């Protein structure tokens, strides 16, 4: 009997391309309808831009010599009050004076340019380090809360359950406000600390449940084998249960941390200049509303996909013993 022929894939792939093209065209028509003028050329300057700093004469004097060295020019100035000549470096194309000119004090000679990091890059950086700091602290909180959650001690268990239920039952936005306006005021916290605190506690509660489930999924025989070899409860946890549990919970943990990066956009409400807040600020000055929001979304997508690739790689490494 001949093997069953696999049906061709290309019609469906073609359909996919058609649908995507249709979406793109729809988007284009939609923006035409609202008479939106796309100004993508305005976006790059918000990643990095060249800042011009005017160079002025430090004193009244005379230009004795100009060495044009490609992009830069060295202007030699001799003070009229007497003394040794002084060297001023400016960009050649900004040079405003000629050789031998008399220059008054504070007169502009030219300018130098410096690359500056734009607000989008700064915001992106804030989002990244804020998420990683909260993720790391949240992982530690989650580990402790998860272990308390399965503890035999009723006090520890009760506290862990209360914490998890409180955090999971209230919106993150409300938690951020409470953390900033109430706890932040009482303890006199900086807004960044308050933001990290709120995000860590939030992600900690979800991580705790993930870790609890992971620990409980490890067969009892593993603990028994370790204990029968004379290991203590803590040694068994550290060497036997947690490494295996961690491997199992890596996919849900990864999902949690990717959500965290996205949820971190909420801290912009307490005036932390993260990616989202940077985007909002840029829009007020550039009026490139659509472009900036699309760029911001793309940047979030970039960070989350890099992270998910990284975790995928880690997962594959752990799978060696399977």
């Amino acid at each position, binding site marked *: 009997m001949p093997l069953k022929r696999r049906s061709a894939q290309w019609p469906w792939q073609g359909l996919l391309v058609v649908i995507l093209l249709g979406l793109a065209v729809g988007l284009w028509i939609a923006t035409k309808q609202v008479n939106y003028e796309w100004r993508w050329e305005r976006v790059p300057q918000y990643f990095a831009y060249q800042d011009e700093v005017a160079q002025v004469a430090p004193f009244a004097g005379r230009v004795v010599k100009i060495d044009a060295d490609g992009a830069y020019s060295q202007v030699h100035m001799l003070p009229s009050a007497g003394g040794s000549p002084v060297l001023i470096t400016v960009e050649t194309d900004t040079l405003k004076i000629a050789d031998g000119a008399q220059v008054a004090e504070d007169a502009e000679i030219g300018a130098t340019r410096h690359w500056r990091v734009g607000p989008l890059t700064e915001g992106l950086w804030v989002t990244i380090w804020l998420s990683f700091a909260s993720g790391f602290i949240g992982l530690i909180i989650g580990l402790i809360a998860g272990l308390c959650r399965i503890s035999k001690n009723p006090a520890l268990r009760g506290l862990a359950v209360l914490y998890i239920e409180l955090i999971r039952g209230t919106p993150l936005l409300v938690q951020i406000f409470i953390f900033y306006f109430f706890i932040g005021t009482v303890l006199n916290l900086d807004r960044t600390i308050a933001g990290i605190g709120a995000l860590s506690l939030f992600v900690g509660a979800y991580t705790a449940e993930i870790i609890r489930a992971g620990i409980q999924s490890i*067969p009892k*025989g*593993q603990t*028994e*084998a*370790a*204990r*029968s*070899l*004379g*290991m*203590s409860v803590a*040694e068994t946890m550290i*060497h*036997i249960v947690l*490494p*295996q549990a961690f*491997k199992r919970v890596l996919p849900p943990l990864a999902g949690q941390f990717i959500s965290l990066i996205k949820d971190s956009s909420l801290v912009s409400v307490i005036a932390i200049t993260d990616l989202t807040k940077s985007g909002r600020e840029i829009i007020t000055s550039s009026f490139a509303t659509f472009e900036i929001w699309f760029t911001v979304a793309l940047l979030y997508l970039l960070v989350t996909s890099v992270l998910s690739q990284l975790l995928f790689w880690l997962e594959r490494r752990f799978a*060696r*013993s*399977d």
Partner: protein
Amino acid sequence: MIEVKHLIKVFEGRGQVVRAVDDVSTQIAKGEVVVVIGPSGSGKSTFLRCLNGLEEFDDGQVVIDGIDIAGSATNLNAVRREVGMVFQHFNLFPHKTVLENVTLAQRVVRKREAVEATDKAMALLTKVGIAEKTNEYPSRLSGGQQQRVAIARALAMDPKVMLFDEPTSALDPEMVGEVLDVMKQLASEGMTMAVVTHEMGFAREVAQRVLFMDAGKVLEDAPPAKFFTAPKEPRAQMFLKQVL
């Protein structure tokens, strides 16, 4: 070596109370091999697990090498490192290689140096005939090989007693022999052993004494020659008729 006095273990659940181990008293001398047999649910595994405190018993006393394991001043972890245990389902650590399985407890519990622990592990893995698999993960090994690694892992702690909880019950028939051979060798070297098993051949050949348990009680305590040929208890006679 092991002394058990009036051991009682009760399981409660769903309104039922099961006396899994019901007033068992016995002793195992140094170098003695004792095989515990009985129908399933007779409490023989629970009895064995009480001997190293994996199961917390409700009443009675277990004394190992002069130490009361339920005593308030007793460090149970210190007792357990002297009592090796081999499980029905091997319970090897799947995230560690064969070698790491055997060295881990030596490093963590006995605080041995890496070189010393590795040498010891290699010697034991060679002894159980599995030295060529040291860098494999347990999932790549057959059941019989895994169980031999588990025996090596327990022996690496230099235990004074070895407990075997149905070590061959989860194995494919053709792999039972290789595990029993290792156990026979251990017995001939003078290891004190308590073995829960359904392998009557092993009991007959290796055991010095056979304990027959039913409903949590030890009904017979006799040398194998006597037990297998002339059991006193009717329940033991029934059991032997069914398994032999």
